[in-house]
């Protein structure tokens, strides 16, 4: 029987990398809620630095082409979900507002700007990717 089930150093690096981000982010949120925002920012930065250093110092790849494929697929689904939801929600709300059925809450403007900005960034990266593949 082979030792294929044994963990490799890469597993530890990946786990530590994810744990560093998770701990830093959890402390960030907890310390903000507790009233120590600057300490929270420090904890987040520390977690990020540890994670990046772990990935940098490891002899083996922390993430590879399969991870990139997974992230690409998740990104595609995210953009599709946000795009389809936006294509329904925002025109519906504009029409409803024009007809006097609803009044927009302030956060809705920011949500609209965020979605518009998100797709603007996406469009820029689509153009860049196309230019690199010509």
């Amino acid at each position, binding site marked *: 029987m082979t030792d294929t089930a*044994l963990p*490799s150093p*890469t*597993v530890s690096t*990946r786990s530590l990398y994810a744990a560093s981000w998770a701990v830093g982010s959890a402390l960030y949120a907890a310390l903000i809620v507790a009233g120590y925002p600057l300490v929270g920012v420090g904890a987040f930065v520390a977690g990020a630095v540890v994670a990046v250093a772990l990935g940098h110092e490891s002899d*083996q*790849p922390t*993430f590879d082409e*399969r*991870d990139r494929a997974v992230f690409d697929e998740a990104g595609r689904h995210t953009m599709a979900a946000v795009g389809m939801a936006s294509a329904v929600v925002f025109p519906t709300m504009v029409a409803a507002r024009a007809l006097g059925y609803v009044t927009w809450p302030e956060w809705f403007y920011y949500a609209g700007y965020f979605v518009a900005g998100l797709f603007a960034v996406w469009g820029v990266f689509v153009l860049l990717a196309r230019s690199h593949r010509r």
Partner: protein
Amino acid sequence: MESNLREYREREGLSQGALGEAVGVTRQTINAVERGRYDPSLELALKLAAHFDCAVEDLFQLEDDGEG
């Protein structure tokens, strides 16, 4: 896609981690390729073929859909 990667790897007595290190990917990726859960990139397939000194077709074949 069907893969003979496990047979080639075990013939050389390599662990998944060792093979991954040799071709620059993680153990998890070798495991996923062997189980048919991930189709390797052309670059990885060529690296694996070069490592085992065989053709890519020796390691990977299109699955027979039974209609040919």
